């Protein structure tokens, strides 16, 4: 489930303590964001853990020496509310002993502390082995020796001076206020994961992963009526450097509604001005008449629907019941794969891809040392595969893991997380304007709004940022209070087609929560503008009297 508390945590910021508790890690000086842990120290610590675990009786061990850097710049109107630089460094050790998993972690970077944690992990595994009905089975993965990989960034966000970041955000805020917003919040979330992985398979993998997100919200109020409305930014979090905020004209798309959306480069100030105007228009926009509509969904909206109704239900751990107690199970049970289950119409081909450039999930190796790849989940509407990690692959009869293992910290145990899951664009040439021209009675939705789906991923409800009524092939007016309700297989069966690849854009989820204790991961979802016929729309306006 997408975490709702991270942005809420920034709503009332005054103390560093609040943010430090919301974003674990120790605060550090800005200059230190550009440094790295010495490679020889990482290898030495990893070898200390591997040796200690083996001596204590482990049959498999992996070690993650992690340095997780985050920078948050948080502003509202003309005020910088907080700048936080955090670092979290430590070692997480996972072992198999007696056929069961054990895990322990320490923030002390000494051979002795790491060896002690390794022995603790073995002790935990042995305590659990007594009640284990079947031993863990790991799909083989080849040792790759000493290798490294880095997100292909142009500008390291951590190296951009803080003054430039503050000037950018305050400029964005001033532009929104100038365009009629009463309030504006803007932020930068910058992440650099320096991850070193070593295992008894003979791998020593050093990866340097970068991500960026620049959320913004413009709010307008009408004091006389007490009404208020907001419009959030239309950016996507990306697996890119600071170059994402260059606002390159070639990466902009003006939608048929006149709203500009963005591909691999974001013009935050331009979007802030539009957000203020759009929010103002919401105050007087007519309320939707509930009923069945053909929906035309912009990629910046559809990404979240793909995430919830395809990405999550095709995680094999959910299908098998490992997440039954919290995130839930899945309607897409294994028998459905065998029966070539019709997940959607023949227009629906959905791929998982851990290698897609610019995406949040792109890495060369996952957090258990498996080389990443791209594969089909749904092919021409038919369910063909799931997402797996090493201890699940054998259940599907697979010879190898799909490389979907991830931990959000050195102190969290790695487990199966969603790959980038994306809808393939239509093969025939079609623009959003041409798609809308064919819709008689519809709603065009841009941006993600509220979202909720049941624990088996059948019944979902989605809102959005901007809604436009379509009548007889033309956009007639902006409307409000729209949410659509869907049942996953019916929704994807109602897919009437997607625009071509020139319209393809990534949506991103920066804080996707799963697991107990809950961990976050970041993942992208690509699509082109797509049409769904006859979807149930409800009106969400209420009165408190």
């Amino acid at each position, binding site marked *: 489930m997408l975490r709702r*508390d991270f942005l809420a945590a920034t709503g009332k910021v005054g103390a560093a303590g609040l943010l430090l508790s919301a974003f674990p890690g120790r605060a550090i000086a800005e200059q230190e964001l550009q440094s790295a842990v010495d490679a020889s120290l990482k290898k030495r610590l990893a070898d200390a853990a591997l040796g200690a675990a083996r001596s204590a009786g482990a049959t498999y061990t992996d070690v993650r020496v992690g340095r997780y850097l985050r920078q948050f710049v948080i502003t509202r109107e003309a005020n910088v509310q907080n700048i936080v630089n955090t670092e979290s460094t430590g070692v997480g050790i996972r072992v198999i002993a007696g056929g069961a998993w*054990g895990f322990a972690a*320490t923030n002390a970077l000494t051979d002795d502390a790491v060896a002690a944690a390794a022995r603790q992990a073995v002790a935990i595994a042995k305590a*659990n082995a*007594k009640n284990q009905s079947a031993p863990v089975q790991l799909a083989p993965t080849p040792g790759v020796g000493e290798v490294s990989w880095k997100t292909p960034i142009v500008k390291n966000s951590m190296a951009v001076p803080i003054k430039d970041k503050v000037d950018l955000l305050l400029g964005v805020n001033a532009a929104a206020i100038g365009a009629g917003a009463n309030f504006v919040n803007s932020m930068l979330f910058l992440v650099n994961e320096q991850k070193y992985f070593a295992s008894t398979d003979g791998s020593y993998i050093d990866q340097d992963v970068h991500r960026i997100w620049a959320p913004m919200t413009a709010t307008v109020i009408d004091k006389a009526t007490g009404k208020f409305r907001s419009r959030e930014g239309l950016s996507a979090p990306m697996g890119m450097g600071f170059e994402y905020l260059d606002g390159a004209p070639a990466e902009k798309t003006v939608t048929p509604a006149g709203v500009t959306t963005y591909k691999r480069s974001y013009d935050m100030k331009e979007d802030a001005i539009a957000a203020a105007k759009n929010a103002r228009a919401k105050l007087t926009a007519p309320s939707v008449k509930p009923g069945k509509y053909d929906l035309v969904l912009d990629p910046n909206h559809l990404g979240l629907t793909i995430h919830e109704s395809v990405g999550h239900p095709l995680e094999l751990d959910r299908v*098998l019941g490992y997440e039954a107690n919290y995130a839930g199970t899945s309607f897409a049970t294994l028998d459905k794969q065998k029966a070539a289950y019709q997940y959607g119409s023949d227009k629906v081909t959905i791929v998982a891809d851990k290698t897609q450039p610019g995406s949040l999930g792109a890495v060369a190796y996952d957090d258990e040392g498996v080389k990443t790849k791209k594969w089909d989940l749904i092919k021409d509407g038919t369910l063909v595969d799931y997402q797996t990690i090493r201890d699940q692959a054998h259940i599907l009869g697979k010879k190898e893991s799909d490389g979907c293992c991830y931990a959000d910290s050195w102190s969290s145990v790695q487990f199966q997380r969603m790959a980038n899951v994306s809808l393939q664009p239509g093969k025939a040439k079609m623009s959003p304007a041409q798609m809308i021209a064919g819709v008689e009675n519809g709603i065009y939705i841009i941006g993600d709004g509220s979202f*909720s789906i049941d624990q*088996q991923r059948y019944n979902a409800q989605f809102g959005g940022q901007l809604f436009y009524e379509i009548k007889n092939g033309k956009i007639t007016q902006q409307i409000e209070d729209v949410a659509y309700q869907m049942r996953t297989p019916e929704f994807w069966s109602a897919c009437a087609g997607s625009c071509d690849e020139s319209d393809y854009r990534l949506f991103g989820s920066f804080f996707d929560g799963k697991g107990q204790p809950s961990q976050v991961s970041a993942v992208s979802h690509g699509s082109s503008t797509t049409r769904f016929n006859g979807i149930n729309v409800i009106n969400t306006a209420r009165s408190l009297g």
Partner: protein
Amino acid sequence: MALFTEAEARAICAKAVKMSKADECSATLTGSIKGNVRFARNDVSTAGLVEDTDLAVQVAFGKRTGVATINQFDDASIERCVRRAEDLARLAPENAEYMPVLDKQAYRATPTFSAATAALTPEARAQVAAQSIAPCRAAKLVAAGFLEDGQSFYAFANSKGNSGYQRSTGMDYTCTVRTEDGRGSGWVGRNLQDSAAFSADTEIRTAMRKASASVDAKAIEPGKYTVILEPAAAAGLVSFMLNFFDARSADEGRSFLSKKGGGNKLGEQVFGPQVNITSDPWDPQAAVLPWDDDYVPREKMPIVQNGKVMNLDYSRFWAAKQGKKAIGTPGNIIMAGGTKSTADLVRTTQRGILVSRTWYIRMVDPQTVLLTGLTRDGTFYIENGEIKYPIKNLRFNESPVIMLNNIDELGKPVRVAGDESSLTMVLPPMRLRDFTFTSLSDAV
């Protein structure tokens, strides 16, 4: 290293503050040891132990602030941390809303520590998993659950002589039990500070009973129904709404507690007269630290009394600007109720729906706090005081403000945790009129 005694922790904080040359300085030292066990498909899936300790130093030169932290505690390391915070502060832009550190406060200790919880071992956790799994295996049911427990300390000091130290413990157990064919699902959750009061053997029976009883669920028409929300089902809705008790948002006109024409609804009748919600850090059932994240002392205070809003959450900055007193942001909420159990409420219900748990609750419209979400793991139709049959899960679109204006009866409050809230809560089961369900879900 993870847990310092009071004397050790206070000495480290005092040392850091003394080393600072800034106008103001505060030092916070926190540490924790947390253990967990996770099980699914009637087997343990993961188990772990994580420890961490951090010293955070915040300094200010005028309205320019800097924060640095470190996890080494010798004199040289502490000094390095202080200097780093000072370097950062000199480079920082002014924060117009910066508030000076607090003068010395009188914090009264709260009962947040239990020796039994602090003494839990990996074997004890494995035992909880075993006690949850064994009866399920025997009854051809499938258990998936999670236990997390831990102990921690929180110490701080500042350059005006304010300081504090307290230890805490906590444990949270949840377990979902499903039938082997996946047609039935039940759940149980227990959130405690003292593990001595916990028995997995007993708790698991609730989830097992609900799993078996929810097989062959019938579909009913979505619409408005009388519902009984068990405390765990109410927690997600009530805690979500309490996130929006921020005074500043209300004063700025962007909250359900904003008034037409300006100002906020403090003192106004917003909920039904049966609604009484207080916060009390000393409550023995739900004790929390006596200070909030800004070190402002928490107080026992009414939040809603007889349906009237009695307190909004003022940050120190906003309180000073509005001429109000800043009280520590509540860490717990205690909602008053009656004496009846959930079962008693069922017995006096003519027709209605019993909801065991709610799930994936999200804001649809902040103007009215309209929330959407679903029922889960045990939803039953009640007729003439009896549970008649299980029903399919339902999606609701409902505002807790409207819901708390439609109270029929409240039962006996119990301690619960929210899926996504950090609040410790004591809530009653609630029978509510006209709760709005908008669609059916096939999910079990």
